[in-house]
């Protein structure tokens, strides 16, 4: 279970104080695929970053599988992220100097999954995303859709308990977007992961279990 209680987060900028999140509370049951919907600037990415420990909320508590993420010190937080979380970013964010296979293998090595098991998992994931032949390709040799598929594979390689995806289809056409979401769904089902995805694209919501609407940093409504 992912439980958020009264999460607030504000930023200071040249335009003054911006309240990105105000008293957001929500629960996502383990194994669910939840989508956070909202316009640009509604606080979706900030919420996702707070859940994943990339950002610290000003107030409130984020409980991920019995761990209060926002109260972890730097090193325990890193180790928690390494073991239990997977991220898919809007731009893929693959490491440019690592091949597709090396990118997918990175979280495995960080989690000390080595040898035959590591090789096996990478091959399976490559096959799962339909990019076996691109194992040795560098990220700049991939299309946008392929990059996001690799990004999903990398995020799920170490079988995290929670996958956080921030606008993973923003730069893709509708078909590619749907494929990526379907892939996330399939792979996370195989690994038993919970997914929370931020998006403003209604066309890709067929696969999700619940939709959480954010407006101006506050929870608007939740639909199942």
């Amino acid at each position, binding site marked *: 279970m992912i439980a958020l209680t009264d999460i607030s987060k504000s930023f200071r900028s040249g335009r003054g104080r911006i309240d990105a999140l105000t008293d957001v509370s929500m629960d996502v049951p383990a194994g669910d695929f939840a989508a956070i919907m909202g316009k640009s600037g509604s606080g979706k990415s900030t919420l996702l970053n707070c859940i994943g420990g990339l950002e610290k909320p000003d107030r409130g508590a984020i409980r991920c599988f019995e761990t209060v993420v926002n109260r972890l010190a730097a090193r325990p937080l890193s180790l928690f992220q390494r073991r239990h979380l997977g991220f898919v970013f809007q731009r893929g964010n693959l490491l440019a100097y690592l091949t597709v296979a090396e990118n997918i293998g990175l979280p495995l090595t960080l*989690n000390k999954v080595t040898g035959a098991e590591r090789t096996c998992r990478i091959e399976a994931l490559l096959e799962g995303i339909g990019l076996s032949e691109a194992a040795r390709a560098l990220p700049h040799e991939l299309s946008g859709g392929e990059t996001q598929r690799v990004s999903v594979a990398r995020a799920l390689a170490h079988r995290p308990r929670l996958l956080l995806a921030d606008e993973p289809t923003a730069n893709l056409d509708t078909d590619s977007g749907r494929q990526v979401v379907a892939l996330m769904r399939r792979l996370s089902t195989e690994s038993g992961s919970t997914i929370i995805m931020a998006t403003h694209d209604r066309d890709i919501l067929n696969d999700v279990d619940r939709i959480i609407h954010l407006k101006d940093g506050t929870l608007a409504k939740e639909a199942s």
Partner: protein
Amino acid sequence: MTSGGVGFWVRIALLFLLRSGRSTAALSVMVVTAVAALIFLAALSVGVKDAMLRNTVGLFAGHITVSNLPGNISPANLRIAGVKAVLQRRYRPGVLSGDGLALPLTLCGIDPARESAVTALEKKITAGRYPQNGRAEILISRELARSFGVHIGDDLRFQDRPGGAGSSFRVAGIYQSGLEALDRGLAFCPLDRLPDKDTAWTAAVFLKDGVVPAAILKAYRQQLPATVRLTSWEDQMPDLRQLIDLEAISMAVVIVLVFGVVAIGLACSFVIFIIRNMREYGILKAMGVTTAEMTRLIATKVMLMNLAACGAGLLIGVAAVLAVARLGGIDISAFTSHNRYFAVSGVIYPRLTAFSLWAPPAVSLVFSLAAAVWPALLVARKRAADILRMI
């Protein structure tokens, strides 16, 4: 990538450097050039010092003077490791007279062939030639020749004790060294023509480049009788010693300034190099890479690149020094023709020393690692979301 330990981070750093070819190459060229230039500059500084020493002690005196040597010790006994040549000399104080004038001076008996081979005094002969063995010939300074009003072929008489018959010498050569110690009160004749042959002799010891007199003096003190007197060029020529020290300090200031400028350039380049790849650190941080691991990764990248670039810079610097030294050195005669410390030759041969080899790579490595501290701290202190937002 089979391990989560040091090897894993070294491999990641290596892949980054190899596959970020252009950035790595651009920064490497800077490090390579800086290290090579600094090695050459440091070697040139040593070369200037060598040239001044070679010009001054190589003209006649030698690096060490061993006087009051008993006859049972030969020049061969003094040729130990580090010694290039030993010249046998005998000195007789007396009076040189001619054309109604008598001047006190010291007559130095030399082996003309050996002197000619080892010292550069022959190059300072302005008229005539070196005296020859078996002939009663004398080499005098231009100042003495003017005082006596003599020319090549004229005769002068030397008396080593009052009332003695003395010996007659024909002027075979006239020199002008520019050094007061040589141009006043000294004249040269063949050893076998020196009157009153005393068995005690003096050795002028010439050392190989880079050998310090102290080490040879220590060996001589253990080997020679206590009655023998040892003096190094540092004692004989305190003015040269001071000048070399002054030159060394000036060169050190120049080198430190150049090192400083190069080091700041390197540091700035490394900061840009690391900040340019900040997104990578944000991604890794989001994947749960700890601050310690991130710092290790940054340091490993800097060190690997530096080691490779310093290696190449070292090779190029050494090659440049050896090439210049073997191709005749750097001739600065136009700027030294009236400088008595470059009395023989204005050619500088850069020479490598341990300092010139280790200091430039060490400076590069230290400053690059220091430059990596700020980006590493930036990565450590910022949250992954902030880093990803920065780019």
